[in-house]
């Protein structure tokens, strides 16, 4: 460790103002603080500080996503060989998925962090850690066969238009990962929906065994083929086609547990979002006029990206409601809208993405009313005390 520190101290002057590599100052700083928590001490206010910082916060979210990622990798292989009708071992399936997944992750982080570093240098501030999570989320919410150039374009769009134009991490209005997905969804719909994209190889003319359908359960449901829905057990476990990280409700719940236990993710949003989804499902059941509306409300929560979206995307602290009361309302409305859009609008089988982006827009409005209520309570107190 000492040798490493010495080396860093030795090359540091080159990156300071006036040094040879001044243009890479932010990049250097990002790598230095990645290696070492800095030796900075408190100069004003509280003399002691909690060791929790933004890096730790983000790494906890990344850790909570790992179960979904590992399962997703295995499922890529599993679905692929299922389509072929071949029997393979757990490791073979996982390895196939790992090889498929690695370039997606590399492109997502490479493009995103590159842009982040550039903006940090231009603005003269430190590189924000927000993209550690965004760059991990994006690979989990795209189909496995997404062309890498498309992905790169979407990531660049999300980081620049979704985040940096607003001032960077902490200032953005839309969840950046969902911005990337929405970009892909509207720009390249052929690669984002249908029966061909969810299983590795189908789009490239993979010969499948008879009777194999690469469609997601959500697509089946939207098409009215309710009888073809996989069993609830399969949906919970996640052995179904879908976006890479969204299929396994079990892996997602494990992540949710980590987020809630560490206090990083808002349990209020998760709970209210699932309640909202359940309520909307029940309402649809009540007025059911087609088989899709008849799907039991609780099963809706296991379908598609609902669980993944509510646990990892709706809870993004920057783009969701920032007040505690607001979080209850926000989460509830996200849940309702997700099921509503999914079931009643056949053009958009994946309502979760649109519901969250829509509520991102309304989050500041919800907060506004919560803040107003706080102000009113305070004013009311004044009136009481005058009397």
């Amino acid at each position, binding site marked *: 460790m000492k040798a490493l520190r010495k080396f860093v101290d030795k090359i540091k002057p080159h990156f300071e103002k006036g040094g040879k590599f001044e243009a890479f100052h932010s990049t250097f700083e990002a790598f230095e603080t990645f*290696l070492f928590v800095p030796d900075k001490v408190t100069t*004003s206010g509280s*003399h*002691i500080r909690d060791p929790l910082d933004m890096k730790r916060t983000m790494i906890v979210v990344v850790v909570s996503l790992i179960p979904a990622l590992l399962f997703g990798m295995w499922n890529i292989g599993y679905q692929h060989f299922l389509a072929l009708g071949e029997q393979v071992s757990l490791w073979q399936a996982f390895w196939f998925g790992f090889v498929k997944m690695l370039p997606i992750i590399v492109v997502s982080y490479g493009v995103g962090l590159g842009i982040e570093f550039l903006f940090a240098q231009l603005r003269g501030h*430190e590189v924000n850690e927000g993209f550690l999570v965004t760059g991990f989320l994006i690979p989990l919410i795209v189909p496995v066969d997404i062309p890498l150039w498309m992905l790169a374009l979407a990531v660049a769009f999300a980081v620049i238009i979704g985040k940096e134009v607003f001032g960077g991490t902490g200032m953005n209005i839309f969840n950046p990962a969902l911005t990337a997905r929405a970009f892909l969804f509207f720009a390249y719909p052929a690669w984002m929906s249908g029966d061909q994209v969810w299983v590795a190889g189908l789009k490239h003319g993979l010969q499948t065994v008879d009777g194999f359908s690469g469609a997601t359960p959500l697509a089946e449901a939207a098409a009215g083929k309710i009888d073809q829905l996989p069993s609830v057990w399969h949906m919970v476990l996640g052995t179904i086609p879908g976006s890479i990280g969204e299929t396994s409700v079990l892996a997602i719940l494990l992540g949710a547990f980590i987020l809630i236990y560490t206090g990083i993710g808002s349990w209020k949003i998760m709970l209210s979002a699932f309640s909202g989804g359940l309520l909307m499902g029940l309402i649809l059941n009540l007025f059911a006029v087609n088989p899709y509306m008849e799907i039991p409300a609780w099963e809706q929560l296991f379908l598609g990206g609902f669980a993944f979206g509510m646990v990892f995307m709706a809870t993004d602290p920057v783009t969701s*409601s920032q007040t505690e009361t607001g979080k209850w309302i926000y989460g509830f409305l996200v849940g309702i809208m997700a099921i509503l859009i999914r079931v009643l609008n056949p053009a958009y089988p994946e309502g979760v993405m649109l519901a969250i982006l829509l509520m991102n827009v309304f989050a500041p409005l919800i907060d506004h009313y919560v803040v107003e209520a706080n102000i009113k309570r305070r004013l009311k107190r004044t009136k009481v005390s005058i009397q």
Partner: protein
Amino acid sequence: MNRVIKLRKGLDIRIQGVAEKNPVSASPSETYALKPIDFQGLTPKLSVRPDDVVKAGSPLFFDKYRPDILFTSPVSGRVKTVLRGERRRILEVVVEADGKQDFLEFKKGDPLQMKRAEIIENLLKSGVWPFIRQRPFDFVANPADTPKAVFISLFDTSPLAPDYSVILKRKEKTFQTGINVLKQLTDGKVHLGIHPEKSDGSFVNTLKNIEIHAFSGPHPAGNVGVHIHHIDPVNKGELVWVVNPQDVLIIGRLFEEGRLDARRVVALAGSEVKKTGYFETMLGASVEPLVKDNVKEGALRYISGNVLTGKKIDPAGYIGFYDSLISVIPEGNYFELFGWVLPGFNKFSFSRTFFSWLRPRKTYRLDTNLHGGHRPFVLTGEYEKVMPMDILVMQLFKAILTDDIDMMENLGLYEVVEEDIALCEFIDPSKTEMQKILRDGIDALVKELG
């Protein structure tokens, strides 16, 4: 005291080095200092020059804009130096004690028999007045005002805080005299916030002319600002006054003895102190006799006050005007390889992101490392977990940062001072300088109010 107000939000920081509850003697300090920087918003004007001879109670400086408010020497002796900082700002006025302790004589008598104006004059002349501070804003109270109430908190929940039941033992009579003085200053009540278990019941039960309220819960349950919020909150245009318990004694002694008797018990605490304890010393005393040969090796930070809100001082620095605690903790100027990814079994954190949650009773040797770099606000709802008041902390701070005076008023800037948001600053993962920003906001608001 009928019911206990139970507060749930907050955090008791498990830091090592709580002062042992035994009196420790140390050689008395040779020099004493008053520091104008201890008083929010004060512009001092000197009344003395170096080498002037002063008595205990002689003015050293006064408030330029409210010249009635005097700051007087706690000891008799000779003015040694006037230490100035940037732009000739006065940092310290140091008096070398002559060891005789000659007192200037002030009026004595039963405050309940005295007129309000008479009492105020006595407090002002003796230099005892600045112990009375106002909320909002934490300024020294204005003698021309009449507050709607006076608040005293009899317990301190901050890290390493001294135990007032030790400090105040057998001083009921003087404390009562102090309360009687305060009672004469307000049209309303004098409120005393106590802890149902930590406060000494036999002490509290003897007190008269006072409203007693019990509060329980983690820090900041002992903060007087929290008590005010729950008992009689400060709205725009309203004033309450606050006094620390030990300073009530100084007020009491003024009226019992007719002197500025600024003796004070100070707790010496912190993980880097070899022998902690309670010292009887004097207002403005140097900490040198307490800490010399009594601290461990290494780079240390000496703090007058607690580790959340105190001021950094030199090893030979002076105890702050309002402080009853000296904390000594290690500096944190070291690099830590991959500190942010390691499990962190030995890191105290409010969140459960470090595995220290496995040992909920362990105490920690906390240092001054910032543990990260400054970032914009990202996490939400964190501050509210340690804020036992109905205040939207992040929204208030956004109002301050955007200079929105109306919003600052509406969101409760009249109700908080630095110590009330110090815990928010401690837990903040974005490492925002919240106490500093809050003061900037208060300054902007005061300027606007004119």
